[in-house]
């Protein structure tokens, strides 16, 4: 969960729809005001009725305080349809220098980012896709903290929202994914809950390319599969979001 130091605990403990209402009044930046005003579904809403947006960031590292966002991919979707005609992808100029290691990882180079906009230049576009939708990510310790820090830095205020983490769902489904010492002796491998490995378990295809948009689409597909296999379309969103 993101931090907003000035926020009273009473607000933080409100159910999400009411919390959004309160935040829409206290938020100063227009993009954030609009985000909260778009509202949040109540926790008993069936997942099949929830508008979601799969979100993926490529970053220069894993620490929100020390590293920066390099690219953003997102695709709005529901359980029924991942809408490619609303898919978006941006490369943004990171605040901190690119490390060579992360270049080799996500393939975005210095040349790509030298002309890229700063995140503040595209915030309105990004929020146009986020407003009114529940974000879905694979591994929740990237997108939410990175977005929070980036907004703190640029707007002087952070952001709070619930999200669904497909990796957390896999972790929940495979609590004993590290085999015991004995099982490891007989060759049993740990169960991987990384995106590509999780997808394989549902028969989802392999995507050759790795970029924020493909990973966002891959995450959306994974959630559709998880719901169909383990939860059912009537599952209240409150059971899934974190």
């Amino acid at each position, binding site marked *: 969960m993101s931090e907003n130091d000035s926020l009273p605990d009473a607000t933080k403990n409100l159910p999400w729809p009411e919390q959004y209402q309160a935040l829409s009044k206290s938020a100063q930046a227009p993009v954030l005001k609009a985000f909260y005003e778009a509202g949040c579904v109540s926790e008993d809403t069936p997942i099949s009725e929830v508008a979601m947006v799969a979100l993926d960031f490529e970053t220069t590292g894993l620490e929100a305080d020390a590293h920066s966002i390099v690219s953003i*991919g997102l695709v709005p979707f529901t359980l029924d349809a991942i809408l490619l005609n609303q898919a978006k992808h941006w490369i943004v100029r990171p605040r901190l220098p690119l490390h060579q290691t992360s270049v080799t990882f996500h393939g975005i180079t210095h040349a790509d980012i030298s002309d890229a906009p700063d995140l503040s230049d595209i915030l309105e576009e990004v929020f146009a896709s986020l407003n009114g939708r529940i974000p879905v990510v694979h591994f929740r310790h990237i997108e939410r903290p990175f977005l929070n820090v980036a907004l703190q830095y640029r707007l002087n205020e952070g952001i709070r929202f619930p999200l669904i983490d497909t990796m957390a769902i896999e972790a929940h489904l495979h609590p004993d994914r590290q085999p015991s010492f004995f099982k490891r002796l007989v060759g049993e491998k740990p169960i991987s809950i990384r995106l590509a490995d999780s997808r394989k378990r549902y028969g989802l295809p392999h*995507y050759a390319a790795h970029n924020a948009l493909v990973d966002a689409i891959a995450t959306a*597909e994974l959630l559709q599969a998880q719901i169909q296999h383990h939860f059912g379309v009537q599952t209240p969103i409150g059971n899934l979001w974190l």
Partner: protein
Amino acid sequence: MQAELIDIRNHLIQHAPFDEMPEELVNELTTNIEISYVRAGTQITETGQISTRMYYVRSGAVEIFRRSGELYNRISEGEIFGQFGLLMRGQVRFPARALEDSLLYCVPKEIFHHLFENDENFADFVEIEDRSRLRSAVSRREKSNALMTSRVNRLISRETVSAPTTVRLQEAARIMTDQGVSALLLMDEECGATCDRERLVGIITDRDLRTRAVTEALPSETPISEIMTTGLITIRASSYVFEAMLTMLHNNVHHLPVIDGDEVRGVIALADIVRYESQSSLYLVSNIFHQQDVKALKKISRDVRDSFVRMVNEDANSHMIGSAMAGIGRSFTQRLLELGEEKLGPPPVPYCFMALGSMARDEQLVVTDQDNAMILSDSFVPEEHDAYFLELAKFVSDGLAECGYTYCTGDIMATNPKWRQPLKVWRSYFTDWIENPKAEALLNSNIFFDLDGIYGRTEFAEELKALISEKASNSQLFLSLMARNALNRTPPLGFFRTFVLEEDGKHQKTFNLKRRGTAPLSDLIRIHALACGSRAQNSFERLKGIGKTKLIMEDDLSNLRDALEFISIVRIRHQALTLEAGGEPDNNVRPEDLSPFERSHLKDAFQVVSNAQKFLRFRYNSQATRHV
């Protein structure tokens, strides 16, 4: 399109009809896809539901049902479904259910209609499904060949030139010269008051004047009726030019009177057709008859393969190519028999030289061995006459081998005394095969049920055809054992419409288009033809005959016709490509050598073969004797 979506686009463009779609349209399509994951067993669409999307299977498998609940089709990766409902502007026609966990790319109906209106290839593809898709694949090829789209009546350039049969030789020659024609039609005017129209009874050509009149030094007053050709082979005005070509090839004639109802519309000559096909196989045929010895025949036999490749490149259909190749093979045989008779003297008793198998069916290709036999007159006395016929048979067989028609490994050749017998023995062979059938024996005699007299007393062969047609349809045991044998070879299609591959001699994973495709098809067509008493030999002609008896539904017949055409043409194209690359053609293809279009349609075609085999099994309640 976002460059990041390229993975999705790249999957689409590997599959028909997206493989031929213009890039902007594919990009537009990709951008508008809605992805949906469905679990095995999920009902994706239901009958009567409003259609809103077409579906593309990205991974997994989906089953399509008829309204009756019967399984209609199984769709796997890279294939589409749901297009029918959209075309009907309304309701789902074939409900779909996920067979496996599947990832579907859904195309919203607005985008579907946009593609439909802007890409003709896409429109053609979605408008027709499977077997009808196969049909349009076949007809699209054929549209590009003028021989197959032009009708005979377009070749008639002038009024019919005719004369009464009562004219004299010199008068006939004068009319032909004055009118500048190479053939004169001869009409019977003696039909009295019962008819008001003259009746076509004969033809005389330039060549006839040379060979029959001049060389024989006939008096100029000879009645033309004494030297004209009767028992005319004609062609209907509405026939296609290629049919006229096949008729000429098959009968070795160079002029065809064109008939429209009862009326004679004109004459078309070889030269009229050759205009349509610059380097016609008809030339090769007439050339064969000009060669004076085996050595010379061998020399021109090298042109056969060129002629084959040329026809393929000119987009001829398989019926045309098969008939042309058979016509060429038949001509070599006929010329060799003429040369043999010149060398050995006239035959001591009448005989008929008979072609068997693919040549008899007019379905010959370039890789072929010789299958032939002799029917001798019943006046044949072995001690007195057989030495002559053995020598003639050897002369022909050796000559054919020189010309590239290898000896038959099963020894089905006139050189084998068993297949050089008088008509009465042949009658007893066929009677025995049909009335006391044994599965194993029929495996070997199968080939004799495709037969055609090609030289000498061809009426002997016609007698055998009559006997077969009369007896076969009455012997259920014979038909059911034939059916059993026909089921030994199955199409190379796995459960999920994947190709089942075998290792060939060169250790490559291939499937055999003849053994697994055209052969099982012609086998099962033969059985239905025998069951309905058809005397046709060519598989396409047999299908026509079967159609008249209503033994098989018209739809299923067209499917069989299209499947045969498509598998044959892929086989032919494969051989032509090998020849052009300087290789030795065979029947084994690797799936990766086929275009996605061919792969997809071949699967449809093999599915037709498979269904037809199921019908055969059901009809004759027969199981395969063994699996090959």
